[in-house]
């Protein structure tokens, strides 16, 4: 599942950040690295960008960027 598909308010763990470009690097520099836990707070009025919470601060990114982030929902992990 990518970060885009993560239901709002649900906690998840980042599995991988895919791609090897400037944006991937920027995302990782901002602390979105494998293993870190994230939560989607909301999406902007026109559905894009998304606001997420990572390492205790708020980060906005477009869906196209969130699509490169593979996450594993912590909720589903408990359920399964």
């Amino acid at each position, binding site marked *: 599942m990518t970060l885009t598909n993560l239901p709002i308010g649900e906690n998840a763990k980042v599995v991988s*950040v895919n791609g*090897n470009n*400037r*944006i*991937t*690097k*920027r*995302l*990782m*520099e*901002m*602390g979105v*690295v*494998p293993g*870190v836990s994230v939560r989607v*707070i*909301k999406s*902007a*009025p*026109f*559905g*894009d*960008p998304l*606001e997420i919470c990572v*390492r*205790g*601060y*708020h*980060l*906005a*990114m*477009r869906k*196209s*960027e969130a699509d490169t982030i593979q996450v594993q929902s912590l909720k589903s992990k408990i359920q399964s």
Partner: protein
Amino acid sequence: MNSKIITATEKQATANGRQSVKASIVIALAGNPNAGKTTLFNALTGLRQKVANYPGVTVERKEGVWRLNGSEKTARLIDLPGLYSLDATSLDEQIARDVLTGKLLDLPKPNVIVAVVDATNLERNLYLVTQLLEYKIPVVIALTMIDVAEKQSLEIDTKKLSKLLQIPVVEVKATQKLGIDELAAKVLETAYNKSVLDGNSFFDRNSADDLDFIRLSLQDDGEVNKKIFARYNFISDVYQESVKPKQTNERSFSEKIDRVLTHKFFGLLILVAILLFIFQTIFSWANLPMDLLEKGFGALGDFVRANLSEGILTDLLVDGVIAGVGGVVVFLPQILLLFLFLSILEDTGYMARAAFLLDKLMSRVGLHGKAFVPLLSSFACAIPGIMATRTIESPKDRLATIMIAPFMSCSARLPVYTLMIGTFFAGQTVFGFLSLGAVLILAMYALGIVVAVAVAWILKRTLLKSPPPPFVMELPPYRLPNVQNVLLNMFNNGWQFLKRAGTVILAISIILWALTAFPRSTDLETPSQAISQNQIAPGSQEPAVVGSTEENCGCSLEDAKKIEEEKQGLALRNSYAGQLGHLIEPVIAPLGFDWKIGVALIASFAAREVLVSTLSIIYNVGKDSNEESEGLIDAVRNAKKDDGSPAWTPLTALTLMVFFVLAIQCMSTVAVVRRETNSWSWTIFMVFYMTALAYAAAFLTYQVGKLLGFG
């Protein structure tokens, strides 16, 4: 007295920098955006700071003098741009690297780095610190926002943090000047610390066993991302050991505010309301000081004219220098107010929310969400709008925004629209109830926006081609703005506007004045004008003298005024500007303009509203008329071309309005674009493409209009 101290210390600092590095140390202040870096910089330097640009780029360079307490030493404190990383992917990061590696000519390599670290956002802030540690410069951490962190029940063990990172950590509270002395002491202590200089980089220093993992990762060379991963793993370890975890699940204060401010529906509504409030305030609040400034410069001109003997020099001083520079300084209140609001929006954290709300709309054109505010500001005036593009990080996106900002119909176009509509479209309605004038003004605003969107779209696909700007942006926690930061930011921007734009504008003012004033037309005087010359002698401003001249020659002061104005009109016709008007007549004839309108067009390249006063001079209406005065409206209606046909038709008026929407007739804007882009070629490109577009659109309007039987 204060200013003396500033210049003295600044001079001392620069002298020290040049001559002996021993006497003064150089300190670089680095930190994430929103970490409290600016507040600390202002607290350390007070007013002993100066703002400039790094050579060749538009990145702001802030430098100040920090008097390290208790010692004779002063330090040059370099405020680096706000950074998340030092990998040189952005211009800011490149500049910061150049400073830290001592690549800049006038700046020695820093002796110490003070890293500003936000305690409430420790992990991400420490990422930059892990990079700073690689520059073989001693680093001292200034830990800010401790009080906020405590409120969030975050307990940070500063000593442990210092031990783990192997660098000093000082808690500071810049607004209350707490911890500043200790910071100074630590900085001096570490400045020449040999062990750090030899101690090498982050990865060497942490050669302990628990970092073997990092080494393994790094063997996979070329993979920068793994390096980032490794750094964050190190940080996570440090964090876990030195910080007691805060309670999760509790939503932050900012998140609560954001439930309203970035709400899908109310968020946009509130954004519109805030922006309306700001522009309304800029217009209404700035009116009074702008009027005062205008009157002040007018009075200064009168005073100079009254006290100096008549002659070219006086004319140059009054009509060229004072009128030209005055015409620009008049914008200062608007600029100060806009920057007041912009810094409040930025400092509170709302600016990021505005970009968040509008990014989807802006990205359709290929622009960043942050481009919205500068574009909106440009409806008031393109100058502060263009200056406000500094918040856009990507140079190409910033350039694209600057290139389209002048298409927004600014307040200076309104007098022109008003004159044209008042003359030709007054009292007419569309569909029986809509005022044609209002519809036309709205259409002009819409035309500007449509063309701007189209140009941005094209630029972003051609000259400024770049991938869609990444929108990975922090939404910083809401905070109360710091009064000192806001005021300093406002005054620094105002001062830069005056200083830099002022020099270019002064030069252009003088050139334009010369064009309209030469050749001197003394030999053209008719006998009646010779009489008027006597009547309008400097002394005639006193009522007694006016009375006596009326008695003597039996003609009223109004007649004398008319003659004087006629003379001015004649002088203009024979001036170089008048000759230029004739010269460009073949070019502007397809737009329906005669040479007189040509003169007004040339003059209006100084500033759009000059069209109104120039037309008044050409049609001998008198300089004091404004866009609503009956005299000018009648004169425009009755004006004849040289062949006797009417000079103006409703179609000509519409064509002129279209031209004014798209042409860059504002030397202040050109000067600011030159400064902000730091490139003459982009500035010249802008002047050319906008003028070409304006010409093409005006040509189309007039020719199609004529084909359809108008005009």
